[in-house]
């Protein structure tokens, strides 16, 4: 349980926090999407780290006792990446439409457009 041995998980936590912070603190919609992407990417790191087996190789059938890396998390995260891509695409296209409708992508300016002051 040494700290350095868990470096991947530290990276996951730090990236996740960075992503969430951007998401919460920025008013610019594009920056919000950036934050969301960083947040989602952090999760990919977590999944891929847990598939790694110390001394493991590619999951190909071989003779003898071999420690394989677990391919399942990779497959899962490939699906999650696709979901992330789709979310980003939908989010960005909404931003394009918002820009066309409001002329701005700053959250506070949109508020003013909608409710005055």
């Amino acid at each position: 349980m040494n700290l350095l041995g868990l470096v991947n998980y530290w990276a996951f936590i730090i990236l996740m926090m960075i992503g969430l912070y951007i998401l919460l603190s920025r008013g610019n919609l594009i920056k919000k999407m950036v934050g969301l992407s960083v947040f989602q990417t952090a999760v990919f790191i977590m999944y891929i780290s847990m598939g790694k087996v110390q001394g493991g190789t590619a999951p190909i059938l071989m003779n003898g006792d071999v420690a394989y890396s677990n391919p399942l998390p990779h497959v899962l995260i490939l699906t999650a990446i696709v979901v992330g891509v789709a979310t980003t695409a939908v989010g960005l296209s909404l931003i394009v439409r918002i820009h066309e409708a409001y002329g701005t992508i700053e959250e506070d300016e949109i508020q003013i457009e909608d409710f005055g002051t």
Partner: protein
Amino acid sequence: MEDKIIIRVGAKTLIPFIMVFALYVQFHGDYGPGGGFQAGVIFAAGFILYGLIFGVDMAKKVLPLSVAWLFGSAGVLIFAGVGVVTLLLGGDFLDYSVLAHDPEHGQHWGILLVELGVLTTVFGVMISIFYSFAGRRGLGT
């Protein structure tokens, strides 16, 4: 960028290799790392490179939006269609073993077909996204 000869020639040389590499990733996918999603993205990347260099209008002449759209849906149909065929052949949904006389061949064919469906959909969707963003007119600064 139509007047930049180095970029044009460079891109023209690269694009076929990108696309062939995509096919390699696709057909290698059932033995090693790779598969339909990665292949579709690489294939689309090659095409998007063409669009970036020669302009979206030229790209649309090669592959109109409606065709890209059709690819996007056709892939899903291939994927789910394989499932339905396996049902009709008496197996469970997506049970590839019934596709050929030998279950091992069946598995092989099934995974290839399904990955082909994934490739088609991912390629079509990526191109559609590219067109929808790049072709959007009337955006202010």
